[in-house]
């Protein structure tokens, strides 16, 4: 595994630190270089890494740390704490429109997992006692509507479709009307995948936002994403002012550095993570656990605890 050696290296670095009674600036520098490499290996964005390392270093060189009896542990704590903060600290939850009817709109690049996640969300909402309905607004991808219908069936949730229409705005508006009329209280709008630089399709999302007023716009980000995660997240957030992020495909061996980058450039919380193709594979996101995963820090945390 690509990351094992790095995680080993890091732990080695921290162990070296730990064995030193006193830390010099040079020791901290070397440790920061390793942290930087670890984050880059985990696909955290280059700029985010640079800033992060500079911040951490400044904190580490503070008097309390350097003069502490256990400076190494302090450094590890700072890295872990800062990383957790960067991931969103306490964590956040999906929010519902106090008016009683919530529209959730999904958005994201092609193939990130929007349609599948619609099903997972419907499932989650039902378990939370809500009455969700799905709405098929991907009028482009071949069989996208069929796909959502199969998904809807699997999670026992009705799907609003209009196969004759090529106008997602019109479809979403009609779906909202019907959902309210029929006594549903959440409408989940599936949209086609698109590039954030695709002017026409981004305008289409803005238009849906304008006309249907989603209470939550959720950006679906693939955990396997590399350096591009910031461009996509920034692009979608600038156009749509997203409310939260869902990280998919976390069931593999991805380090998920993209999560950190997306969260950092948008300032929006990561609400859930997708951990499989089935509709119950959706978990609340825990910034602290993610921080450990990114740095491969499981063992490092026990190092701190043993301090």
């Amino acid at each position, binding site marked *: 595994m690509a990351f094992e050696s790095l995680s080993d290296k890091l732990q080695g670095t921290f162990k070296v630190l730990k064995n030193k009674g006193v830390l010099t600036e040079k020791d901290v520098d070397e440790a920061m270089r390793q942290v930087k490499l670890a984050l880059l290996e985990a696909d955290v964005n*280059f700029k985010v890494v640079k800033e992060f390392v500079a911040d951490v270093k400044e904190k580490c060189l503070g008097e309390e740390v350097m003069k502490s009896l256990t400076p190494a542990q302090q450094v590890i704590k700072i890295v872990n704490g800062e990383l957790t903060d960067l991931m969103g600290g306490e964590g956040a939850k999906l929010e519902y429109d106090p008016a009683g009817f919530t529209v959730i709109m999904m958005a994201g690049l092609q*193939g*990130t997992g929007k349609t*599948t996640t619609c099903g997972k969300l419907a499932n989650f909402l039902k378990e939370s006692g809500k009455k969700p309905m799905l709405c098929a607004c991907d009028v482009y991808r071949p069989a996208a509507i069929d796909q959502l219908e199969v998904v809807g069936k699997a999670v026992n949730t009705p799907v609003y479709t209009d196969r004759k229409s090529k106008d997602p705005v019109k479809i979403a508006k009609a779906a909202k009307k019907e959902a309210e009329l029929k006594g549903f209280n959440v409408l989940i709008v599936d949209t086609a995948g698109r590039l954030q630089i695709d002017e026409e399709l981004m305008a289409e999302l803005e238009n849906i936002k304008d006309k249907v007023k989603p209470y939550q716009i959720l950006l679906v980000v693939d955990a396997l994403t590399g*350096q591009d995660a910031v461009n996509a997240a920034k692009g979608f957030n600038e156009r749509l002012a997203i409310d939260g992020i869902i990280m998919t495909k976390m069931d593999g061996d991805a380090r998920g550095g993209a999560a950190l980058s997306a969260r950092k450039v948008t300032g929006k919380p990561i609400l859930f993570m997708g951990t499989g193709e089935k509709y119950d594979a959706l978990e609340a996101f825990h910034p602290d656990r993610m921080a450990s995963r990114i740095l491969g820090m499981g063992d490092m945390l026990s190092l701190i605890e043993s301090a």
Partner: protein
Amino acid sequence: MSLTKERKGFFGRLSERIGDALFMRQKIDEDMMDEIEEILITSDIGMDTTEKIMNELREYIKDNMITLPKNIKKGLTDIIIRLIDKGDRNKLSDKTPLVIMMIGINGGGKTTTIAKLGHKLKEEGKTVMFAAADTFRAAAGEQLAIWGDRIGVNTVMHQEGADPSAVIFDAIQSAKAKGIDVLICDTAGRLQTKKNLMTELEKMNKVVSREYPEADRETLLVLDATNGKNAISQAKEFNEVAELTGVVITKLDGTAKGGIAITIADEFDMPIKYLGVGEGMEDLEEFNAEEFAGGIFNE
């Protein structure tokens, strides 16, 4: 759908940035080298490959006693060509009958790439058939069949949940009976860490070897250009169960650089065969190392 396409691809955009890094500067110094390194890293070229490229570049500068930034472009171009040029292996097999397995992680672009490739082969005068061996994902078969209809290719399809190997078996019999030149098999997306799904892939391959030994084979890994380092693990694991013959990099019409493919070409000696540059059936480009690398520093 009309996408506002930016067809510059990986090397075009890399080139602009490296061009800036080089031409804005008067002399070669550590600052400039750092900037080149940063560009390589932010293009998702892996850390090891980046280090390798930088070391080779330093040697090139020393050996050729280069002092002006603009004169290192040839060195950098040649280094990258050496990593990605696999000669004839960058081309799809021309033999028939040919069975192409399209494999890769979820949502990478397998099904769409099959449509594009089917269209291309048809235009070249070949007869093509699709096998919808993704029987797992919701409406995956329908998706492929709709593409097949659009480009005039028959799709062999079973019900959702059917055994994918059985679809392949049927498709092979049908392709043989009809004397089809190229059979392209769609498979379900799977993360490389899922052992049972990887075994299923092995089984599909065995069916092809057993039922169609006379057919030539291509097993293409579809890599999403937006993917980062995880693509290395994808290449390794898929190669282990399926003996890849090459990769297709998709979604290069976006802002992702797809540099991870350079690492994969280097580390696994894996040829890149095609580039996906959009969602339409025409949006597939043949990979050509020289042409692309030559375009790196287009001024």
